[in-house]
């Protein structure tokens, strides 16, 4: 119909540009149209007609005159058109394993075989390619899709690269769009755009599976302390099983670490589940998160993912400074003593002139009280400031405390008390910047009154406050805890801070009890009471909620504290991608970025694979180093990064990554129509469903890639123009008759 009305296919109008073929100046057309408008207005407004009718009739007449004038100037569409038989069309067929699902590869080859290829060949020479990890030339249509990887970006760049030796006029991509090698980033898309070769895409596969369950992501901390409680945040989606129960399991080498039943979301919806588990003893763990396979699943290979956790063999040390004897200290110490992977070193001012130290490793440690040097203070990973006034610390110690979190990356916890926070003058200390809450500018904020505690929404999801496995039971448990013995008022939480728990004093009000925030490289928390010991003394001795809470809070404080060398790989699991990028942050002995270090990564892989990668400084980022390595063999890799400054070793870090081949192809197996449409739109092509692909051979002609000519198609004589003119005159005539204005 479009072609009947406008003489040419829609593609001509889409690709072409409007020109006026008469050669007469366009300004003259504009002037005449304006003059005609003025004349018509003068004539009609003089007539004894109501103003609206005069405007309607005059408008129709002026539009008809303007259309006639436009036609006199001979409008036309100028469009680039490929020269027949002189341009090559690259037909790229996705041969990755996901195309084997639902017989997609058969449908694609069937479509080509059923005439599409012939139609194309009538107009252009055609070259066949296969798309997988990269582009490969095919002599005939592929019978099977067996490749483990789809890298559409690399394949299409390979196809456009053929233009260097061939007049590629267009690319036709037959794919499900299931790219699993990182997707098409903006630079790849820009490169495709720059080639000016239109890419037409034909999408195969259902856009949504009828019956499938898939884990789309699982987030697990990459590092952990031994026997720590970790959480896996699992994102899943499903279709066909709405509301059904399914078992979610976390395993390490076949040993089940945690399992629970979840209920599936609505069809097509994603949902997020959090399951916590114990990290176990030190070592590299391959943690498998899986959903039970349900009856009739289209694809049962996307129900499990593997993530790596490096359970570090270290025992962080926390320095707890208490200004006076308090019950809170005893019970915190007792909770920490039950955790074999934490070391709590405490120091309490027992008298005006005496300290009592516990947990020190040698008689010299802390013999002068709170450290006032980097060497002494920064060897701890966490600090607890108990009931002690800011003025007890000299300015250097107060600055060090701030630097401890900011520069060292340590964790600092402030407890409430009668001589701390606002009542201890911390609101006027430089350290106030690091606190997650605002401090009132007054004294008298500490009250020895009982207060009930309750988790906030953030606290419900936090592992710090998880004393019961089930979130609902955990909320109930917190509500049932004995009242704390005292509380301290603070201001509101600062932007970016999280309030995990609040207290409700019996006298009324609601204040943050536990607030946390990141500060610089470290983290800071305020626990605004010195009376959580009532949770221990007020409950059965077998109840472990007090101990578990404190162990988790202390672990949170120090779990992410790194040494002078902190290394990461860009990904934890490299799926079908051998290029490994290692990045390291290196600090000198004073924990300042070290720009002149010698940094090396020593890699050990499966089957005795080994390598040493020198890491180079990153320009413009002091202390940052990076390097690349090719890990060809699938399996688990262990990497130790060592940094030296001259002959002095600054530190070392250990990390793990994993190489997998052929696993990613089982995920995101629905047709990724959005990606295929984006490729077509960005390159000037079109997306087709297989049933619409018959139009492709004709529409593909209009391209300015390859060897093309500019064609000008007049459109002044289109039936649409005639019908529009006739319609306007008919409308005018009818209105005149109706209004008696003939």
């Amino acid at each position, binding site marked *: 119909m479009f072609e009947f009305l406008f003489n040419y296919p829609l593609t001509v109008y889409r690709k072409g540009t409007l020109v006026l073929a008469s050669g007469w100046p366009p300004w003259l057309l504009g002037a005449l149209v304006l003059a005609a408008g003025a004349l018509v207005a003068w004539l009609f407004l003089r007539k004894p007609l109501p103003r609206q009718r005069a405007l309607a009739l005059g408008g129709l007449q002026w539009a008809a005159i303007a259309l006639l004038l436009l036609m006199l100037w001979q409008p036309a569409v100028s469009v680039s058109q490929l020269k027949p038989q002189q341009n090559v069309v690259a037909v790229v067929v996705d041969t990755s394993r996901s195309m084997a699902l639902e017989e997609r590869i058969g449908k694609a080859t069937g479509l080509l075989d059923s005439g599409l290829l012939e139609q194309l060949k009538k107009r252009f020479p055609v070259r066949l390619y296969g798309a997988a990890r990269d582009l490969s030339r095919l002599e005939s249509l592929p019978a099977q899709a067996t490749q483990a990887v789809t890298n559409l970006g690399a394949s299409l760049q390979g196809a456009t690269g053929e233009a260097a030796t061939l007049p590629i006029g267009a690319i036709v991509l037959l794919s499900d769009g299931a790219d699993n090698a990182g997707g098409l980033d903006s630079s790849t898309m820009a490169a495709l755009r720059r080639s000016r070769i239109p890419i037409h895409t034909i999408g195969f596969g259902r856009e949504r599976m009828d019956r499938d369950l898939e884990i789309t992501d699982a987030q697990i901390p990459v590092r952990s302390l031994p026997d720590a409680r970790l959480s896996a945040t699992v994102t899943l989606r499903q279709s066909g099983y709405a509301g059904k129960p399914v078992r979610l399991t976390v395993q390490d080498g076949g040993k089940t670490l945690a399992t629970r039943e979840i209920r599936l979301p609505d069809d097509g919806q994603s949902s997020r589940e959090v399951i916590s588990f114990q990290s176990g003893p030190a070592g590299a763990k391959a943690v498998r998160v899986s959903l039970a396979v349900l009856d009739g699943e289209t694809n049962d290979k996307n129900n499990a993912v593997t993530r790596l956790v490096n359970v570090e063999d270290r025992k962080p040390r926390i320095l707890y400074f208490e200004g006076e004897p308090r019950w809170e200290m*005893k019970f915190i110490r007792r909770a920490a003593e039950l955790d074999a992977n934490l070391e709590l070193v405490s120091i309490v001012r027992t*008298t005006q002139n005496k300290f009592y130290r516990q947990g020190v490793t040698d008689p010299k440690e802390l013999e002068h009280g709170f450290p006032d040097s980097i060497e002494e203070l920064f060897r701890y990973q966490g600090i607890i400031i108990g009931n002690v006034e800011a003025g007890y610390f000299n300015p250097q110690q107060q600055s060090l405390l701030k630097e401890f979190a900011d520069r060292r990356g340590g964790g600092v916890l402030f407890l409430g008390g009668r001589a701390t926070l606002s009542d201890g003058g911390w609101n006027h200390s430089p350290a106030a910047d690091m606190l997650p809450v605002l401090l009132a500018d007054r004294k008298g904020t500490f009250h020895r009154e009982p207060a009930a505690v309750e988790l906030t929404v953030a606290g419900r999801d936090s592992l710090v406050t998880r004393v019961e496995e089930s979130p609902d039971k955990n909320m109930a448990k917190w509500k049932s805890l004995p009242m704390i013995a005292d509380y301290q008022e603070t201001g509101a939480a600062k932007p970016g801070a999280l309030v995990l728990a609040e207290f409700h004093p019996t006298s009324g009000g609601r204040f943050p009890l536990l607030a946390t925030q990141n500060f610089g490289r470290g983290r800071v928390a305020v626990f605004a009471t010195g009376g959580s010991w009532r949770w221990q003394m007020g409950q*059965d001795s077998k109840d472990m909620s007090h101990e578990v809470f404190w162990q988790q809070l202390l672990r949170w404080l120090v779990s992410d504290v790194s040494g002078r060398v902190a290394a990461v790989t860009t990904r934890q699991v490299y799926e079908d991608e051998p290029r490994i990028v290692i990045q390291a942050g290196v600090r000198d002995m004073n924990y300042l970025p070290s720009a002149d270090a010698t940094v090396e990564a020593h890699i050990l892989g499966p089957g005795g694979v080994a390598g040493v990668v020198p890491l180079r400084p990153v320009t413009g980022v002091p202390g940052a180093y990076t390097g690349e390595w090719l890990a060809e063999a699938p399996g688990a890799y262990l990497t130790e990064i060592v940094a030296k400054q001259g002959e002095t070793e600054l530190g070392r870090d250990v990390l793990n990554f994993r190489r997998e081949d052929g696993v990613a192809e089982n995920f995101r197996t629905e047709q990724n129509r959005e990606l295929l449409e984006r490729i077509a739109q960005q390159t000037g092509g079109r997306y087709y469903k297989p049933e619409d692909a018959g139009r492709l051979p004709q529409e593909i002609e209009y391209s300015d890639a390859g060897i093309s000519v500019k064609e000008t198609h007049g459109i002044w004589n289109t039936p649409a123009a005639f019908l529009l003119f006739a319609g306007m005159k008919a409308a005018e005539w009818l209105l005149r008759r109706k209004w008696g204005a003939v």
Partner: protein
Amino acid sequence: MSKRVARIALLFLLAGSLWAFQRGIRNLFPDSDDETPPADGNEKAEFMWARLRYSNFQGGGGMWARRGAWTVDYPKADRQFLQGVRRLTRLQTRSMEHIVDLISDDIFDYPFVYAVEVGHWSLPDAQARKLREFTDRGGFLMTDDFHGTFEWDVFTTSLNKGFGDRPITDIENDDPIFHVVFDLNDRVQVPGIVNYPFTTQTYEYDGFEPKWRAVRDDKGRIVVGICHNMDQGDAWEWADSPRYPEKYASQAYRTGINYIIYAMTH
């Protein structure tokens, strides 16, 4: 018959002498009638001195039977000791004692509990189990002022109802409890006022040697600090008396403070 009369007369004579002697001592160490609470006696503080109220063994307890053996030295010893705690440490303590028992659950709000004359206590099974639960949760019990073999047996009979699985051991000199604030390597027997004038005898009954003993938890922490054959309570109570030797009072204060700070740090 005459022998029998003579024996009775001798008995009366001895009893009369003892009564006269004790009355004399009482005159030298008169009980304070002033039980007015201190002005800040109800202050809310970090530390509250809790005195354990218990039932007497077979209604015994001598002159204290009517009030109960648990009240010995009460309240002057407690209050005078707490003044010392305030002066000698940074501990914020209330100036007045608080009475707890093993009937209600109030004891769980006071993790340090002092029990005196435990050679006369009699704990029903349920109360002994509650005392065990108290220490299992983290509480600390300090016992004092009981002497000799007989009172030891009375004490352990009740204690073992809750702590039968826990041995009672002597505390070594290098234990933190003797060093947490004050170094107490050279300890002496702290006598009660019955030993006045403290020149020849500082023990009572057959409690010749002072014994610092303990019941410990699974981690080796002292949860029951047992001061046997000594009387810290009298030393605290009469520290302000010129007749009570300073060296005993000083040691009693240091011992009490060490026990409290130990309880708050272990």
